[in-house]
């Protein structure tokens, strides 16, 4: 199942098992806040099932696609540094997500560079797409 998620698509079965050890599955009820703008973020979330919406308080988010569905990732702006969350994200329906914590991700990168490179490449690709669409003023999912 993990390999169906965009970020982990390139992993082999064995590598996916190793990453799975680090992921934390959470279930959110409809209307429940996943994270709030200004919270100090500590990692990314990936939607497994269900849907989440972004509360666009920043002007730059007004034109963005404010929904994230299965397989999509959010919160990547805090995966590499301790920073405040950029927006509030709420579960639009009963949603299952997996969280990847920064410290655990960092330890994975140093421990298993092979997995690290694959995941980082996927992450970078997603982030590049999002930035490009933002710059071209196309409909995009924002990096949060």
């Amino acid at each position, binding site marked *: 199942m993990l390999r169906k998620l965009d970020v982990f698509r390139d992993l082999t079965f064995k590598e996916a098992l*190793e990453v799975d*050890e*680090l992921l*934390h*599955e*959470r279930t*959110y*009820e*409809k*209307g*429940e*806040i*996943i*994270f*709030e703008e200004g*919270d*100090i*973020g*500590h*990692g990314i979330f990936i939607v497994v099932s269900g849907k989440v919406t972004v509360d666009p308080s920043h002007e730059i988010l007004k034109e963005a696609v404010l929904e994230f569905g299965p397989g999509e990732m959010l919160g990547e702006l805090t995966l590499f540094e*301790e920073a405040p969350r950029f927006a509030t994200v709420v579960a639009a329906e*009963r949603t299952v997500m997996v*969280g990847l*914590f920064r*410290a*655990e991700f960092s330890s994975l990168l140093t*421990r*298993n*560079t*092979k997995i690290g490179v694959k995941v980082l490449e996927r992450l970078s690709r997603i982030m590049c797409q999002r930035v490009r669409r933002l710059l071209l003023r196309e409909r995009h999912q924002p990096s949060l």
Partner: protein
Amino acid sequence: MKTFRQPGAVTMFMTVLVTCLVLFLFQRILWLVVPGLLALMIYYCLRPLIDWLVVRGVSHEMAVFGTVGVVLVITVGVVFLSAPQLLSRLPQMQVTVDRYVSGGQTLLRRTVQALEEVAPVLKRASLSRQVDTQIQAFTGQFAERNLGKVTLEFLKWLPSLFLVPYLTYFLLKDATRLKKYLIRSIPNAFFEKSLLLFSRLDESLRSFFQGLLVLTCLDTLCLASGLLILGVSPALLLGLTAAVLSWIPYLGSVIGCIMVVLVAATDFPDHPSIAYTCLVLFLCVRLLDDFVFLPLTIGRKLHIHPLLSVLMFFLGATVAGGTGLVLALPVLGVVSVVGEVVAQVVMDGRLRARYRASRQLLAIGTTSET
């Protein structure tokens, strides 16, 4: 590790209070705490090796099983190889201990006599006679009085020590799963904070135990080199024993120092200067420890203010005796991290509000489902 936010006065007070309580409780279940701590120490030492094996394609289970197995076989091998030698020396042990004690006695007597010659006022106060009486009362048949007790105490601890490999194996095998399992039970509102807490706890404990081992190696190296230069043997064994003893703050160093001085005084009865040089060596290593090694290894990583450390040593010793002295710093480190994160949660109104809202949403969800 990132620098942590400085805790407030209330948090610090609560931290000290909880640390004292934990130390008091630990003293009651020492039979479990000691193997637990030893297992944690071995866990943090072996974990890099397990990770290295996993990266090289060995499955996690196999890496843990193999590593713990090899360590266990080596330990059992060393015990079995050294046991006959140790047992054969057991009858002479009492004589050996008494010989070293009497060597120390002679050194002390000579020192006092030398002092009396330098300061006649001491002679008039019959210092020599008083010290002699005191020493006689303390060391009279020292081995006969204490060796049996020490052996019994060791035998009492033996079953408890058998827990160490068992605990280490399961820590290495299931620590990640256990952490995931614990985090699963934490409400969504506090999820990220709990991840942060576990990460910091892991980092604090790792820093402490790895730091302690590095410190022990440095101490052993310094003491053994010094003793080797002075010609006191077995230098490495004495250095290692003294370094391990210094895990007990203050008291351990004193015991280690006395032990080495006794050996030097007995092996070189006509050269008291060697025993005095051993004393100076110990003082130098102690200073190096306090001002260079300790801040570089444990102190810096645990982020504990030196004044608080010293205060905690005394409080720990008062609350839980020797146990408190040994465990004060690691327990304070862990409680500080927990206290800091709990304080962040308690003081964050948004998090608490989010938790209340989540509970309501969950209740609504459950009602509509039924």
